[in-house]
């Protein structure tokens, strides 16, 4: 802590960032999107490392970039909290659990996959994952929609991605371009 800051350093430490992302990495079961409700709880509700607005803004940026959402999110949160070392701690933390678990499974495979209990657990988790993401969406609505025009944009983005299968990048890029073209009063 070589920086001479006038006020007390309230940023989380590198260890805290690593440990939280290790925990998140451990429980990102069933795809990177489940990280969104988990992080919403851990980062904005339990810890207040970020405000709800900052968290929502981050989601936009992480979807615009290529790569696993979990990795993008870890990089963003880590960097915002503690610059490069924070980013390194978060990415390492969220990568290690899968590296360890997968290596163990790959070594034991196929014995492990034959356990029916393993498959049954996952079958029950999948609907819960959908529920958690749906709950995250409902919570996000409060920070995302303050004018009717926002709802229109959300519905259009949904339709483009879900019905027309347009990938997130062009959708995000189009929305950013629209933001620059439209007069500020409209937004």
């Amino acid at each position, binding site marked *: 802590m070589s920086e001479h800051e006038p006020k007390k350093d309230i940023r989380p430490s590198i260890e805290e960032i690593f440990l939280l992302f290790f925990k998140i990495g451990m*429980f*990102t079961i069933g795809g990177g999107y489940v990280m969104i409700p988990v992080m919403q709880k851990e980062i904005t509700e339990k810890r207040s490392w970020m405000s709800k607005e900052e968290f929502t803004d981050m989601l936009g940026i992480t979807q615009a970039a290529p*790569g696993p959402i979990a990795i993008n999110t870890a990089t963003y949160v880590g960097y915002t909290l503690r610059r490069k070392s924070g980013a390194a701690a978060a990415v390492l933390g969220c990568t290690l659990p899968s590296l360890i678990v997968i290596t163990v499974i790959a070594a034991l495979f196929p014995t492990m996959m034959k356990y029916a209990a393993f498959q049954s657990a996952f079958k*029950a988790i999948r609907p*819960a994952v959908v529920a958690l993401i749906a709950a995250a969406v409902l919570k996000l609505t409060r920070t*995302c929609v303050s004018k009717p025009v926002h709802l229109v944009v959300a519905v259009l983005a949904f339709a483009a991605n879900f019905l027309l299968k347009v990938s997130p990048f062009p959708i995000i890029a189009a929305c950013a371009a629209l933001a620059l073209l439209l007069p500020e009063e409209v937004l």
Partner: protein
Amino acid sequence: MLPVLIGLFTSFAKVGLFTFGGGYAALRLIQTEVIIKSAWLTMEEFLDVVAIAEVTPGPIALNASTFIGYKLAGIPGAISGTLGVIFFPVIIMLALTYFVNKLKDNRKMKAIKTMLRAAVLGLISSAAFSMGAAALGSALSIAIFAAALGAAMFLKADPILLLLLTGLAGAVAGL
């Protein structure tokens, strides 16, 4: 050994660079890289990889890269596959995060953020709908969905605890 490690890194770096919108999009790219271009795995082995990547913690693309890396070259392979898949995303995100934080108070940036928030709501809803279409087939799965949604919304249940409990219940009930 070294050519395999470099091959793993570059193949998965490509996967990381061209994947937009989550793990399932990555699987199609991985399929092209490891089956069609490199013939590292058979289609059957690839489907096993997908099954494992889905039921283990961690992003699907990351799990698949680690697993395939391990199959081909042991632990060094697992590490090169993993490093490959996160290489470009981490660099690109560092640059993006730097600019977004730098321009925090810029008026244009604020306008962009407002629009992106709305877009994100649509994109994540879309992810929930696609996953729901695949996961909510039976009455039981819909019941689990409803119970978990209620617990998350009204009881402020911890997401990790919910995942653990439903997984445990599923394993015990033998779905």
